[in-house]
């Protein structure tokens, strides 16, 4: 770095990223955001001020050394950037794509006080994609222990915990109820936001670390958490089963045909590949006029999937205003570009039967924002006499989820009032050696928070089992004259 950068001296505009044309992409499942090219990434890296006290690091739930990796990008040391990121984040290609950056790292970036903040997420994704393309892995030197760790659920929480425990030399098995691993990354988030090939690549990396995946395994029912410890020989267990259980609308007509949860729509489309029906066997209801209730990430995915499946009109109904929409800003923006109709400040009150058990319209009421509620957001209140109807043949609800009940039904683990698994500060549950994290503890949150929880639980498990990690040591190794830098994690077991 020659001269100290200031907000005045850096490129004032954020480096744009190439995106597929909205009209073209609304008819396919290609990824919308094409990602930075190398020159674009290097240009954007020059917008970081390398703050002495980088606020962005605090904004990231797993505290990635953001200026550290951006510096490496500027130096064209992309492998170095990858090493910095993977020191804390296992899944840069995923998080760079799906983190709600505007509320996390980028939301507090100092540049953002005067200009558009540094595109941290896009830079992270650039590095993550390069790593996949070049098959970079930081395969540590692992000294095996005798410990066996069982992980329940293969979403981001389970994946992160599995990786850390494998690096600590444990024999790790991940159990997944579905026939393919990945959790929401696989069944929920569609290909145009997060291609399945990225999820595959991340799972493969875990397998290279020695993690075993056992799909088709419904823990709780096939064997219980208690049995994992008492009979299956696991020294510790991590539960990352996600939130699941969609909340119903609770209005008349919500069981009509054509009314379904976003989870069902997305699972059929993404995991079961129903968009290729009848080439695959799973059918997918194709609505011509689709209404989606809610404005979170799940709702945006349902809207945009419906559009791509050929719906003529796709309408979003949300009871608050756009400013309060919980989805990532980029997704709302992309949805608008793709021709989704937004009815902000409206709420469905009744779904209307066509006389044969299917939906034909939804009756809504307009809302206005009143006094702030407990969440600090202004409470929406219905405007009397403002009812209106939207014609529709498919209503998708994406209004949140509740705790999945299976582990609660089948174990003695203590749950909190809302049915989520109760844990202490180290994420240990009421049962010794059994840890939990991710959506099943916090309720629906984000990918990076789930990952952070998985890693935190891994630290808790290591403490519980008396495994101590030292920091990674870097070694330059020349094999056949080619220099490859390796990170070796040296692990020391306490007596």
């Amino acid at each position, binding site marked *: 770095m020659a001269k100290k950068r200031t907000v005045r001296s850096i490129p004032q505009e954020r480096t744009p990223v190439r995106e597929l044309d909205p009209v073209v992409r609304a008819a396919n499942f290609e990824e919308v955001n094409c990602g930075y090219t190398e020159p674009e990434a290097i240009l954007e890296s020059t917008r970081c001020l390398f703050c002495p006290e980088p606020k962005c690091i605090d904004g990231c739930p797993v505290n990635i050394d953001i200026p550290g990796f951006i510096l490496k990008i500027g130096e064209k040391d992309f492998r170095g950037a990858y090493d910095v990121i993977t020191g804390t984040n296992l899944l840069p290609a995923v998080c760079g794509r799906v983190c709600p950056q505007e509320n996390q790292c980028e939301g507090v970036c100092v540049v953002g006080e005067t200009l558009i903040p540094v595109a941290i997420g896009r830079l992270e994704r650039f590095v993550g994609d390069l790593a996949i393309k070049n098959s970079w892995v930081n395969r540590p030197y692992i000294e095996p222990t005798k410990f066996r760790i069982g992980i329940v659920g293969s979403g981001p929480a389970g994946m992160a915990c599995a990786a850390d425990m494998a690096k600590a030399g444990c024999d790790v098995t991940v159990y997944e109820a579905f026939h393919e691993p990945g959790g929401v990354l696989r069944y929920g988030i569609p290909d145009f936001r997060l291609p399945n090939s990225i999820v595959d690549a991340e799972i493969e990396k875990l397998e290279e670390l020695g993690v075993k995946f056992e*799909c088709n395994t419904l823990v709780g*029912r*096939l*064997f219980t958490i208690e049995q994992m410890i008492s009979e299956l020989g696991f020294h510790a267990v991590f539960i990352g089963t996600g939130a699941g259980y*969609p909340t119903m609308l609770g209005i008349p007509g919500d069981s009509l045909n054509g009314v379904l949860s976003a*989870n069902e729509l997305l699972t059929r489309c993404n995991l079961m590949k129903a968009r290729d029906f*009848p080439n*695959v066997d799973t059918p997918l209801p194709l609505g011509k006029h689709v209404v989606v209730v809610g404005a979170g990430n799940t709702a945006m995915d349902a809207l945009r999937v419906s559009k791509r499946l050929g719906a003529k009109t796709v309408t979003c109904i949300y009871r608050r205003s756009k400013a309060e929409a919980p989805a990532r800003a980029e997704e709302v923006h992309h949805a608008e570009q793709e021709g989704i109709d937004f009815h902000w400040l409206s709420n469905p009150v009744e779904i209307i039967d066509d006389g044969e*058990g299917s939906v034909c319209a939804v009756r809504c009421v307009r809302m206005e924002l009143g006094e702030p509620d407990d969440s600090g957001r202004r409470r929406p209140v219905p405007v009397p006499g403002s009812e209106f109807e939207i014609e529709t043949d498919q209503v998708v609800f994406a209004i949140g989820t509740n705790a999945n009940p299976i582990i609660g039904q089948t174990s003695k683990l203590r749950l909190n009032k809302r049915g989520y698994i109760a844990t202490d500060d180290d994420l240990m549950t009421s049962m010794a050696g059994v840890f939990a994290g991710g959506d099943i503890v916090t309720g629906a949150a984000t990918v990076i928070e789930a990952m952070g929880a998985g890693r935190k639980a891994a630290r808790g498990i290591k403490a519980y089992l008396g495994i101590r990690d030292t920091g990674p040591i870097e070694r330059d190794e020349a094999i056949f004259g080619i220099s490859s830098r390796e990170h070796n994690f040296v692990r020391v077991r306490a007596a």
Partner: protein
Amino acid sequence: MTDSSNQKFLIVRREDFSDVTFLLEISHPMMARAAKPGQFVIVMSHAEGERIPLTIADFDRERGTITLVIQAVGKTTLEMQRNCQVGTALYGLAGPMGIPSHLSDAKKVVCVGGGLGVAPVYPQARAWKESGAYVIGVLGFRNKDLLFWEDKFRAICDELIICTDDGSAGIRGFVTDGIKLALEKHPDIEEVVAIGPPVMMKACAEATRPSGVKTMVSLNPIMVDGTGMCGGCRVKVGETVKFACVDGPDFDGHQVDFDDLMIRLRRYKEEEQVAKERWSETCRMRGIGSEAVSVN
């Protein structure tokens, strides 16, 4: 890609009860150990297949197997009827799912199976027998050619009433007639369990409603995951909405809204028809014997 290639859900026995109904016994020692009456599995027969729920009709902890009894009604089940032979394996098999049937301490019970429902009611009848209850079996079929497992039920029932629509075996009539017979003869019946098509379960619930005898039914809505994540299997029970895969599949028949269930089962009618026609067409083009496809 990771898949379950390290798992093999091997089919070790097959039996054909009729040209529409067949039995598969599948090796899965862990599931055989965990399974309880009333639970079901989700099967995927191949990688592009659909996830379909099937009741665990029997389990053998010693042999390490579970048994499914399947009726070929649409693309997936017809295809399974043709392809699932001994020595082949299923692509996916997850379970046991659902809350096991609650085995009450009733002293005298009626176990009703209609058509294919005969299979799933068996483990429960056996469990009751083992717990010392007086078990009356009521089995209904369209005709005597479709009848199966009479011997298995004889072995565990204190009384067995067979009903056929045409009178070709047992009494002529529906299972509801069998229930009425049993209720008249035994006023001290404490519980009825009925498993079969929704219309039949509805009729059974109506048959016992006047006497108020507790009547449990096992619901079969369309499912995807079977883990409580998609909400596709929701059913109306009393004033509440339940997810059959994690809150059931057993519910109080007097509380269930069967009309709602039957409407919801028609949800994918058109797509099911497309899939089935395409399948029949492919079979015809490949010149494959028509016995498996001619079931309409």
